[in-house]
């Protein structure tokens, strides 16, 4: 399904008072997300890293709002921050053994891990530098407007499009996703059940 | 899955071993310590838990032991009378009745009919007061705050009558060996009648609040079940026994004081769970009202004190006399060696015996139910520890 370029995108929209995705907010949220990510990896106490992950999730949700994806942002808050993180905190508390926090955090071969990650980073940089030419310039700059509602409809057509997509074209994927969830629930229950 | 179906008496040594929990989950031994809002006094219950389920309990008592029985051995019979009120301080009047009747039996003296009627009226009033206090605290343990205030407001009326009659509200010391100490004050019958009309609708209020309350039923139905066989095996008496279906009430089985003159039924439960005990006690309150009503109209005239020598020296011998206290069968076993002081005085308190049933009732329940079951057995630690 080739991506149809939305012709309306090219018309300049009067930016109105203060566009939503001001650079200041973007850098703030991006910085929070990355800082949270770093804390998740480095913290000794797993509850601290869980809280850092929550900070990352909420700031990424903020980024989604800047990308005019309110539905995804709300799902992220509900499913990720509200659901999965509660699950993580539950398990951290149930598996609360003091010994873990005393032990070494990083395994002995951590230099190998870090070097692999650096190689990956180099790959990304290479891809970005080389690939920059592929994207037409006009697509890269994102039109901004103060009224999220107005630009969202401009971008994705009138309201309710989200529903048509999820249940229209992607019905099959939707069924598989529900099947996946069912399997996950069954697996989790069977593994954690104490007495049969 | 509640109480395990054991055959009659239980061999204590095998009790802990038989409970091999699946997959060595770390059992938790926690103390429901002496200072716990729901243990009605200083009772320590050691709970053996598997997660939330109770595997077994061990009651540690004695925090309130004052050695009342030893003190009795160097007190004269009349001097010991006030001690008796301090045992089950919630139902002090029936303690006094039990003790005085036991000594009268020893002296084979008969209290005059007027004294008997006054004794019956005061004991039944005390039964209602004791049940009201039980209902208030029991409901509070399960979470319902309001019944506590309703029951205490109505209990206040009874305590007023006691105060006018014998000067004390709780530890009344109202009876003497051989009869009653005080003649009934001028408006006694009027007060009691006024109380009867006052409290009857109030009991309906308690019932309205709790009996058909879905959450109350959910918290009490099939909780702390004890079968009739277990109850008899453990010697449990009183409302706990009657709720398991055994129709045994000393006021009917071995009538004492003037109970044979009145007709009243014995409320009996079927399943022996907390809800049945609740129903039995509520019905008992209504029966007590009936008894008082019959008694208050026909109090016979005449003396209130039998001819009893100034210094009581009962003949050598021993007797056992028991009455139906609000919690169960309260018995006095007195051995007299002819002197003015009893050689040995043994009290059979109902709460102490009923407490044994806690372990059977609570096996397999959750921690929240332990609180409800302690409430439903209605124990008073003063009586358990003596």
């Amino acid at each position, binding site marked *: 399904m080739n991506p149809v370029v939305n012709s309306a995108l090219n018309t300049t929209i009067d930016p*109105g*008072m*203060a566009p939503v995705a001001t650079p200041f907010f973007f850098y703030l949220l991006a910085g929070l997300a990355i800082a949270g990510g770093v804390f998740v990896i480095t913290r000794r*106490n797993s*509850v*601290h890293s869980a*809280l850092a992950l*929550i900070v990352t999730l909420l700031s990424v949700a903020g980024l989604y709002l800047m990308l005019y994806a*309110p*539905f995804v*942002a*709300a*799902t992220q*808050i*509900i499913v990720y*921050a*509200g*659901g999965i*993180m*509660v699950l993580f*905190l*539950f398990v*951290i*508390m149930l598996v609360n053994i003091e010994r873990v926090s005393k032990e070494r955090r990083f395994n002995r071969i951590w230099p190998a891990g870090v070097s692999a990650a650096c190689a990956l980073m180099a790959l990304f940089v290479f891809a970005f530098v080389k690939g920059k030419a592929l994207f037409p310039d006009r697509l890269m700059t994102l039109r901004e407007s*103060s*009224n*999220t*509602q107005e630009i*969202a409809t401009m971008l994705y057509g*009138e*309201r*309710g499009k989200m529903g048509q997509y999820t249940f229209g074209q992607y019905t099959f994927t939707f069924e598989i996703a529900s099947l996946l969830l069912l399997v996950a629930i069954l697996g989790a229950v069977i593994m954690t059940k104490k007495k049969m | 899955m509640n109480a395990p179906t054991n055959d009659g008496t239980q061999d204590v040594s095998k009790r802990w071993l038989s409970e091999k929990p699946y997959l060595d989950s770390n059992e938790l031994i926690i103390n429901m310590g002496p200072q716990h*809002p*729901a243990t009605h006094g200083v009772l320590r219950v050691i709970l053996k838990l598997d997660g*939330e389920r109770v595997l077994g309990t061990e009651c540690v008592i004695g925090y309130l032991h004052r050695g009342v029985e030893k003190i009795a051995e160097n007190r004269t019979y009349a001097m010991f009378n006030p001690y008796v009120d301090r045992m089950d301080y919630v139902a002090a009047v029936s303690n006094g009745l039990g003790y005085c009747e036991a000594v009268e039996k020893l002296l084979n003296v008969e209290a005059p009919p007027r004294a008997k009627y006054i004794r019956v009226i005061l004991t039944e009033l005390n039964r209602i007061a004791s049940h009201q206090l039980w209902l208030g605290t029991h*409901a509070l*343990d*399960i*979470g*319902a*705050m*309001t019944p*506590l*205030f*309703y029951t205490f*407001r109505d209990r206040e009326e009874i305590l007023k009558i006691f105060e006018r009659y014998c000067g004390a509200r709780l530890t009344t010391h109202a009876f003497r060996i051989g009869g009653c100490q005080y003649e009934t004050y001028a408006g006694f019958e009027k007060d009691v009648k006024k109380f009867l009309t006052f409290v009857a609708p109030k009991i309906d209020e308690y019932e309205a*609040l*709790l009996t058909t*309350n879905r*959450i*109350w039923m*959910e*918290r009490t139905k099939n909780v702390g079940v004890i079968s009739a066989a277990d109850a008899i095996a453990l010697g449990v008496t009183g409302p706990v026994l009657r709720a398991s279906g055994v129709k045994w009430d000393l006021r009917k089985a071995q009538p004492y004081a003037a109970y044979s003159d009145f007709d009243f039924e014995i409320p009996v439960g079927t399943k022996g769970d907390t809800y049945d005990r609740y129903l039995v006690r509520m019905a008992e309150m209504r029966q007590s009202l009936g008894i008082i009503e019959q008694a208050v109209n026909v109090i016979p005239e005449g003396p209130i004190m039998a001819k009893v020598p100034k210094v009581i020296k009962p003949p050598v011998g021993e007797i056992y006399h028991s009455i139906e206290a609000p919690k169960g069968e309260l018995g006095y076993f007195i051995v007299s060696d002819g002197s003015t002081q009893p050689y040995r005085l043994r009290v059979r308190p109902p709460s102490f015996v009923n407490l044994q049933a806690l372990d059977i009732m609570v096996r397999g329940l*959750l*921690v*929240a*139910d332990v*609180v409800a079951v302690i409430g439903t057995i209605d124990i008073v630690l003063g009586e358990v520890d003596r």
Partner: protein
Amino acid sequence: MLNFVMSYLGSTVTPGQAGNQFWALIYVLIIFAGVSVAVVAMNWIERKALAHFQIRLGPMRVGPHGLLQPIADALKLMLKEDIIPAEADQFVFWVAPLIGLLAAFAVYTVIPFGPSQAVSDMNIGILFMLGVSSLGALGIVVAGWASNSHYPLIGALRSTAQMVSYEVAMGLAVVSAVLMTSLNSTGTGTLSMIGIVQAQQQQGIWFIFKFFPLGLLAFVIFAIAMIAETNRAPFDMAEAESELTAGYHTEYSGLRWSLFMLAEYAAMIAVSSIAVTLWLGGWMRPFPNLLQAPAWQFTFSLFPGLTFLGLAAIAGFGTARMPAHSFFRIQRIGLGVFASLLGSIALLLLLIAVAGRSADTSIAARFSEGIDYVYWFVLKVAIFMYLFIWYRATWPRYRFDQLMRVGWKVLLPISLGVLIATAIVGVIIS
């Protein structure tokens, strides 16, 4: 700058939508001040009403009829020593109440007190509300963990499990209400809260009465889940005194503990205002479509003034009944001042209502219309608050496994059934 401020005055759109940060900030301040006052009032009303349920008087000593009791409590909590348990997580211990507060107060940015009286009208209003209320569970888990002692941890795990399981039933009930909004001509429903109330106005029926049994059923499910969500009344397993001391906030004391209480009350108000918006037609006065005649319009606009007049009369009667003894002199003055304050508010409201009626386009008309919206909304929320207290007085407490059983085996299937039934009926009718 000035025209930036004035330009918004005429518009009939929420400040968030109009992109006017200045007025959005003012709306936020007004709403948060209002909620704090409501929490203080709720504290007093809860203690007094609970007391009168239990045939006692409640606080009478601090101020006339205990009116200054909440302030005294707040002061006491501020002065109390703020104990942090030994080797507890300092940072996590400090963050936990804040997460709880964030979750409780963030919902208010979405709640519509009137067509244009809301901080911002997100087009994912309800979804945002569900998301933020699920954050509340995080605050409690972390609080239980940070207190570093056995019982608060169990209390925290229990209340979180309870909140998470009732959130599912709550979500489904909300979905069935949102489904009803899509039965208008265009066929596309809306998630925005203002849109939902306008849909109710358009369809001329509160959603609680729509497709008769279904709307009511969904409402009842939401009402039950709402109580469990805020750990109140029959579901207050966390603070079951008889077993686990005081649940997750045992180790907290002083101001930190009062933050939890503030969060709990704010969550109660938030959740009941969502119920009002979804099922009881938010800011709409009763029978907006039937009784259109200006005479009716006027009578309904008098209601706010009359209620305050009633309150003033009660307070006045209270002062009159106060015994003449010199000890009561200060209390009598205090109550008199309070009564006169209420009376003046009542007069002001009546004046605005009358002025509003005469000149239609004048500021007074818009102002009195605004007051009506907020009044009816707050009245409905107040009724819910009273229900919370009523439940606390009468119901005993559910045991934890019964509580989970009701959540999963009773509420969830019924809410699923209601959702499917609403969909089917909706398809058949439209």
